């Protein structure tokens, strides 16, 4: 009881001053101490508060299913993941698909291809496809987010897989819902966009397909990604809405600048 009081007192103080992360960090630490990890709680938490960089990769991994919720078997699973990564890397090297100079996103792409059995039959002819571009964009963002190549690969792989399995169906509806939300919340902007004729021409589908990787600067995306993994686990519509909210604010800023 006493501890609670102290915490509340400090939290009030922190909120006044503006350090909101301190309390959240502690609560996150409490959350992470649980065995097994409560994914729902984590989702709620990440939706509400930004995750500190220290635990971000960890949370990402847990949320994306790279690591199990039981922390006791994290070591064993991580070892398996590492081995899998090494095998893939080795195969990619062996197939001469990559070299030392190849950028990490491309390496990830090749590994992903090999793992999914998507490697083209003729290695010489490579046509850049849209989904590959999307993967590359996501992988580049992830490689900046993660500390090691291993994490980058696993993050981008699982992200793409999860995204494709869960939200691929809702992608075509997103532009309409965007318009809907715009009409609800920012009618002026919508009208302005319509008058300009810019609404039709905005590359929504690409933005949505890549989850804004490569479309928005990484720094701002990062702040968005702090919360995003949670959304991935939720309903696609919520995800889309949050994306749209985010985009809305961004585009509002842009258009206001332009106007």
């Amino acid at each position: 009881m006493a501890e609670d009081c102290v915490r509340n007192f400090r939290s009030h103080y922190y909120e006044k001053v503006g350090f909101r992360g301190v309390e959240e960090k502690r609560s996150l630490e409490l959350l992470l101490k649980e065995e097994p990890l409560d994914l729902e709680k984590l989702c709620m938490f990440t939706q509400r508060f930004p995750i500190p960089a220290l635990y971000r990769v960890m949370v990402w991994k847990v949320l994306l299913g790279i690591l199990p919720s039981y922390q006791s078997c994290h070591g064993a699973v991580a070892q398996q993941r590492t081995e899998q990564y090494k095998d893939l890397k080795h195969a990619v090297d062996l197939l001469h698909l990559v070299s030392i100079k190849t950028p990490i996103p491309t390496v990830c792409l090749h590994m992903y291809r090999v793992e999914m059995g998507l490697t083209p039959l003729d290695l010489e002819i490579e046509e850049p496809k849209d989904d590959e571009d999307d993967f590359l964009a996501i992988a580049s963002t992830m490689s900046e987010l993660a500390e090691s190549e291993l994490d980058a690969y696993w993050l981008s792989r699982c992200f793409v897989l999860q995204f494709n399995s869960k939200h691929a169906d809702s992608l075509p509806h997103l532009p309409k819902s965007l318009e809907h939300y715009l009409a609800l919340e920012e009618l002026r902007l919508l009208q302005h966009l319509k008058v300009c004729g810019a609404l039709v021409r905005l590359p929504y589908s690409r933005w949505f397909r890549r989850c804004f990787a490569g479309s928005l600067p990484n720094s701002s995306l990062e702040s968005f990604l702090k919360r995003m993994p949670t959304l991935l686990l939720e309903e696609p519509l919520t995800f889309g809405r949050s994306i749209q909210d985010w985009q809305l604010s961004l585009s509002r800023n842009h258009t206001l600048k332009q106007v």
Partner: protein
Amino acid sequence: MAQQGNWTELLSTLDSSDLETVERVRELLQSSLSNERGPGLLNCLLDYYIASQSKEALKMLSAVREPHDKHLLERLNDCFGRPAARLPSLLLLWHLMHKQPSWIHKLPRAPVFPSFLKLLKTDTDVVVLTTGVLVLSTLLPMIPQSIKNCLYDIFDIFSRLASWGIKNPAGQVPDVCLVHLHAGVYTLFHRLYGMYPCNFLSYLRAHYGMRENCALFQEVVLPMLERVRVHPELVTGTKEYEMDASKWKRYETQDVVIECAKVSLDPKEASTEESYSSTHEMFGTNCLPCFTPDTSVHTGHARGSSPLASHGHVPLSLSLCVNQDAISGQMTTEGVEVTWSPSLECGLTTPPPSCGMSPSQLHSGAQHSTPRPESETISPGPPHMDDFSKDPLLEESKLHKLIEDTDANFFNVHSRDGSFTSSATENCDERIPGKNENSEDALVDSPGTVSLRELPQVIDGLDQQTSAAEQEQEDAAINMEISEINQRVHDEISTRGGFDSPFCPSERTWPVPATQVPSASDLHRRPDTQRATNTSATCNKPSTFLPIDNPSFAVNGMDGHSEESTTLPAARTSMVLSSSQLSTPSSSTCDANVSTALSSLGTFPYEILFASALPWTAASFIDKKTAESQVLWESGLEQCNHTSDISPSPLDVLDVLIQRGGDVHAKELKWLPLPCQAADWTHFGGEAPAEEMQVMRARLKLLHAQLLYERHKREQHALRNRRLLRRVIKATALQEYNTAMKDQLNSQEEELRGLKMSLVEEQARVRRVLLDHEHAVAFYQDQLRTLQADRDSLSASNRELQSMLDETYRETQRLNTELQKTNNTVFNTTNDLRHLQDKLKLGQEARDQAEMLNRQLLMLGELNEFCRAELDTAQPCLTKESVMCLDARFQELEQLRRVSRQQLEAATRRISELDSGLAAKELLIEQQKDLLETAKIQAREQLKSVESKYQAQKRVVQALERHLLDLYSKLDNRKEQVQAVAARVSRDEPFLNQGAIGGTQVRNLPDVTTRQGIMDYDGV
């Protein structure tokens, strides 16, 4: 001064007979002239020249260079002041101009020029004046634009000197010299009219518009005006433009001379060039009539000793007849082949509207005039044909005859010229080649125009023609023949008489009905030819025939003209001008029309214009005019009658005069007809023969001047000819080049055709190839379509299978989970069951115990009842004892009860203990279950990761195998290639093939295995 003395001495040696000395002195003088700057030597030289008239000094002076020109001109200015020095100065000036020094343009600005003009205005010496006029005429084309300030002075000079023609101012000037002067003035007139037509005409209009000058105009200026055509610039130019330097910049001196000659109608002045070609060709042929009078005179002279010598006019009329033949012949040839346009003639693009002439009209005019000469030619034909049939040249077709008729006439003239040349001056000699050329031109031109290619040949022909020996031979032969013809014709004429003469038929063909009464009034209404015939007829009548100096004939002829001129002088002038505005002077018919028009005052105004518009008629008119006027003037000259209105050209007069002089000096006086000689004597002023020498000297000087002038003209023409020849050569070269280019073009066209053929072939081939290609494409497209359809169907079935697989997989998973759940529940229930059985067993035991205890309690209660009953019964008997026993028993029971209570308590305690133990055990079981669950989840997680790793590894292995297979296939290909090469190289080595087969078998093994492996994976 000493030096000047030196110079004088030196100069005196200049004319010494020692050639070497002269040469040395000349060199010395020339070097000092070029070194010296001052005027000393020059003045000395000039003085010496004026004093001695030395040729050498003249040469040196005329070669004076630039810095000395000022002094020279100054000195000349001084010399003009002295009457004695005037003539040499003029000659010097002339020589200077001959050299055409670079400083000639300074002359008009130098003081010498005004004084020169002043001299011409004031001097009375006819020799000086004539020389001056000729100098001026020579000078004008050289400096056309710089003399504009003194142009009116020159006009004044012209009018002053022209007036000398009628009123001899000094009175003592011999007429012979006046003829020279008149010729000079005539030349000046040509220059002025040719160069400044507008100014000059306006001056003439102003000056001769005055009444006191009217007579002078009639006498002198009008005849001159009649000898020029209308200058084109009268139409196109203005007074200012004539003076404009820009106009004259385009002309060189010789161009100016030729331009002046072009507007002249006088055959001695006129040019035979360029735009006037059609006319000039005729002029060329028609030169002969101009000369016929002369020659006729000469033949007349030559026959002075013959019995017919007194009938000087007989050959004249004959020559006229020949003239007409020539004209008619020419008209037929020219009229058929030359299309003539007045605009060509004038150099105008449109004909003057006042004329109202259209080409069709013109044409009709031409047609109108052509048949007439034909009839003329044919009708007098027989006698002429007879005459000319002797000529070996004239025995071909009729047309050729006609052509050669003119030609023959030419040769006639030629021969006459030849005879004339033998006794004539250099002047005529010069003309012969020219005429020859003209005749040649006419010959060549008559069938058509000479093309450029033919031109050199023509020139060659000319060269051959002009070879002297041939010419002399020809001349001699033809001369003889002509004299024969003349003789015969004359005989015929004399025997047959006036109207039987060859002219009569021609007269009948005229559409105008003509009375044959030779009255003067009729003469005017008839055509000129008729008049000529009439005159000749009159002359031929033995009764009325008179010698040349017969006044009645002259008066007869003159009266008519004077009458005409006096009655309608203004009209006549206007007519002449209007006709000359058409740039063709009136022809013979026109003349007739003119006279008709004059008498009936313009009944057929258009016909006049038609007739005058025709060049050949115009040309023939000139000839006729010249011939006629020659006749008339000849007689007039004999009578010293200069009042004739239609006077001959002053140049002709001069010619005749010179011939006479030549005759006189050739001591052929005895051949001359006496009246002529007598007329000569009286004509020369009737003075004593003692003064004859002086007159002769003056004439000699005049002749010299004339000669110089003619030489100058000749040089100008030579310059021009050279230029023209250069142009001809250039044109020929261009022609050659043109033909070469044409050949080249032909060959290139050939080449082009070949290329086109090959192009067509190539196109066909390409079309075939394209067709094949299209077929192949269509075939492959069909194949592609079928394959695509196959692929589509396969992929569709694949998708179906995939979906089925997914479904079954999902079903299996569901069933698995269900199974697991049921297993779980079964396991739980068995566990519970076991627990419950244990509990049940324990409860059973406890119940059994409690039952047994209850039963004991029940038995004890019964026993107690029994005992009580027994006690009750036994009480009276067992009072004490029983009471005692009872008590004892009671106590015993109490004790038993206590024990049993303790036992019950212990039993319940035991039950509770057992219950708690059971609960703890259950908790433990729950904990164990949770633990198991987590372990299971963890294991599943691990299993999942391992599974994913395994999947990844499988994929990796697949990829690697695929890669391996790829490599194998590549290797196979390579080996097959190698094998194929090897097989090709050594087909006869079987073991190699075997080895290769073995290799492929070996290689095929891993393929199979890997494929199987892949299939295994796919199955999983």
